[in-house]
């Protein structure tokens, strides 16, 4: 099944005249190299953190994630595909 199925997780609010799920307000990012950790003296791998600011009803909430490069590229690729789909209708 390829459709979005997790209905229990969708929190739908009636705001104004439309039913909405969480709206993305902003996205921030941080990128760099981790040089070492308490468990591994020398690492040298990249870190990539995203913060999504989302509006839930009257308040905003931050969602944090830390991605590997493949995860980031997958996210980027899917957003480009979604945009291409939207472009068909606008």
């Amino acid at each position: 099944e390829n459709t979005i199925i997790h209905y229990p997780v969708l929190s739908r609010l009636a705001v104004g005249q439309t039913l909405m799920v969480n709206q993305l307000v902003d996205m921030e990012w941080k990128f760099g190299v981790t040089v070492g950790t308490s468990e591994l003296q020398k690492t040298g791998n990249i870190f990539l953190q995203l913060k999504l600011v989302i509006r839930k009803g009257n308040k905003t909430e931050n969602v944090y994630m830390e991605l590997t490069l493949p995860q980031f590229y997958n996210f980027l690729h899917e957003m480009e595909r979604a945009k291409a789909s939207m472009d068909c209708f606008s």
Partner: protein
Amino acid sequence: MADADSQRCVSALLNGITQTLYYGNTEITEEFLKNELYAEMTQDEFRALHDKMRSLLKSIASADMDQAQLEAFLTAQTRKQGGSGVTPEQAAALARFWKAHRTRVRESLLAQSRWEPGLRGLKWRVDLHTSASRGQVSNSPVALVELELGRPGEGESSEFVCLEFDEQKVNLVLKKMAELQESIDSVVHRS
């Protein structure tokens, strides 16, 4: 014969310690290891052996030792007087174990250094609202994106976040990602 047995037990002990420390296996307890491998030892004797092996493994993993470093390290350990050193059998077992597990342990440590959940998966769909029970609709497309977030080693438990993007927001995200991409390129291509 006794040596081979003893090495096998040490290897199994190292495996058990690694399962807990690095591979997220919560079922392998000290008690389990003692009963399986060193039933005839006293509790104190086993604890001393277990802690010593664990400490050595952590040192080796933390430095991500290569062959040469490991040899030098283990040689120094065998030369230690009293109970704090290792026997040649233990050293051999450690050497063989590290050779087999080094890559996987390092990957596990790198994954553990990411403290926020990662993006396990995502799905999206684009809706075109043509009508609604109340009021007008803009007739422009809306993207619904479902992000599946979760940490490594947490098995099945994922958090799902569902977000709505209008065209403007999709463009905003793509623009930010392009900036991020530039940043990545500048670091990745430099080395």
